[in-house]
């Protein structure tokens, strides 16, 4: 474990997954996955469809248990604390570890109310709420575009704007970690590029975990990348190394597009 380019040595990981196994009724979805997510950085997760990427990040903020019939074992620690410990409240886990989905899920309310949704759950209102909404929209690079008209229905925004609104909404809860499940998959290239640039910006303040099917995207924004195959973590390394000199044959086949 000393060959990760020295990055791990600088700071403790914000999330550490150990021996994580997820079973559905008749099959294993994730098998003994172990990896560390560094703070203030972008970590990519790649792998063929159905390999368990979504399931993996959903176990990291306790959303996985919501899709019925999954048995989760092993350990996931957030800043050293076991998030599956019985006394831990999943609601608080999700406030610390935010999530953005593949298709933008906009609430049928105004732009302001969308972003304010999370903070309001915690009783914020008035000037404080407004400040946090504006700050979040700013961080998501949306404030300039939507301008002063925050009372517009959010459903009127374009797909790319909607996805950045979802990121703003997640940021408004002030999480430390942002999990994104193929956030640009439903966007056109220009909108996707903007979201990608935003994620690269966000790594200054957040730990960003990016599931993507787009290998170039992983290469562009992720410092480290994990390759999952059939529920197992095959390789996890500096992105550049993983793509250029993969240690595993499976990884090589996948990153060179020779898969099947």
């Amino acid at each position, binding site marked *: 474990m000393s060959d990760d380019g020295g990055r791990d040595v600088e700071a403790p990981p914000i999330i550490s997954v150990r021996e994580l196994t997820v079973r559905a009724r008749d099959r294993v979805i994730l098998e003994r996955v172990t990896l560390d997510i560094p703070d203030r950085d972008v970590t990519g997760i790649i792998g063929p469809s159905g390999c368990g990427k979504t399931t993996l990040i959903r176990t990291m*903020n306790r*959303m996985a248990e919501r899709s019925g019939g999954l048995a989760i074992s092993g350990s996931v620690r957030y800043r050293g604390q076991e998030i599956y410990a019985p006394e831990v409240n999943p*609601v608080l886990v*999700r406030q610390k570890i935010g999530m953005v989905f593949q*298709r933008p899920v906009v609430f049928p309310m105004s732009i302001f109310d969308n972003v304010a949704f999370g903070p309001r759950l915690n009783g914020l209102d008035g000037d404080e709420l407004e400040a946090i909404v504006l700050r979040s929209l700013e961080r998501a690079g949306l404030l300039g575009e939507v301008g002063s008209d925050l009372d517009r229905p959010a459903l009127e925004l374009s797909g790319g704007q909607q996805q950045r609104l979802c990121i703003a909404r997640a940021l408004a809860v002030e999480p430390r970690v942002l999990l994104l499940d193929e956030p640009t998959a439903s966007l056109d290239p220009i909108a996707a590029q903007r979201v990608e640039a935003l994620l690269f910006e966000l790594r200054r303040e957040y730990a960003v975990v990016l599931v993507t099917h787009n290998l170039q995207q992983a290469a562009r924004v992720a410092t480290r990348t994990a390759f999952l195959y059939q529920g197992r973590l095959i390789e996890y390394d500096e992105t550049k190394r993983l793509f250029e000199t993969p240690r595993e044959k499976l990884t090589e086949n996948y990153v060179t597009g020779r898969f099947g």
Partner: protein
Amino acid sequence: MIRDRGAGPTALAADGAELAAVSPRLRHRLRLDGIVRWALLGAFAAVFFPLFDMIYWVSVRAVPKFTLATFTEYQVGNAGGLAAMIEGTFVLIGLATAFATSIGLIAGIYTAEYAPPAVARIGRLAGNVLAGIPAIVIGYFGYFLFALYTGWGYTTLGGALTLSVLMVPFVYRTADLAFSSVPASQREAALALGARRHQYLRRLAWPIALPTVLTGVFLAMAIGLGETAPLVYTAGWSNTPWTGLFSPTSFLTGAIWLFYEQPPTLGALLTLAFQAAFLLIVIVVALNLGLQWLADRYRRRLRGLGA
């Protein structure tokens, strides 16, 4: 940005013959199209002619004889107006809607959000069964429970409670449907922001479900308005001013039922029967227009909400 539309204008130009020449096959298809269109129009007329005919039949007998007294006076013998029945109808429907909405809504939300699947299945089945029970049976049930068992006799409260038994499955079913059909992605997104379930329900699901819930409430009201059987055994009858929850009351459907079959010497009562029918039609139409308006407003707001 200029979009390339592929072929230029020349590709679109057609000479006259290409558009005017009608082959026998096409002519046959056009004729068939005409027949189908007339058949559909006929079916449409068959559905709506009786409705309009009935409204006409009631209106010509009711409308010319409306006076202020129809609304303000109490019926005595062969004279007076519908004041007692109007009061009674509003009190009964108001109370029954309040009961049916509170119970139906809570049960519907429970079924959609909290109940284990087996319980939800039983609840839905029970709702459907209750919706199918004949009104007269519910009337007898109400009579035994709210008139005899409680010892109240004929009361407005008993009538409203019985009527709400009849109305509740319609609110329940639509509330269940409304909350069950909020897209799962919306719930996921709310929970991922750290919402507790009741927060999700109140702040996100409720505004999305509201228009559907309102449809159910309006439907229940329209059904309740048209019922006579559950009330005659429970609310009794009274053509004097309404005095309270524990006294009997009359209602518009009862006026139709009682006054329609009177001897010709009591012609004023026959007119009152038609006027009561006319008022009921007006109220039901108003309810539906109100519902339409609300639904349009909300649909605009929810447009684009993905699955």
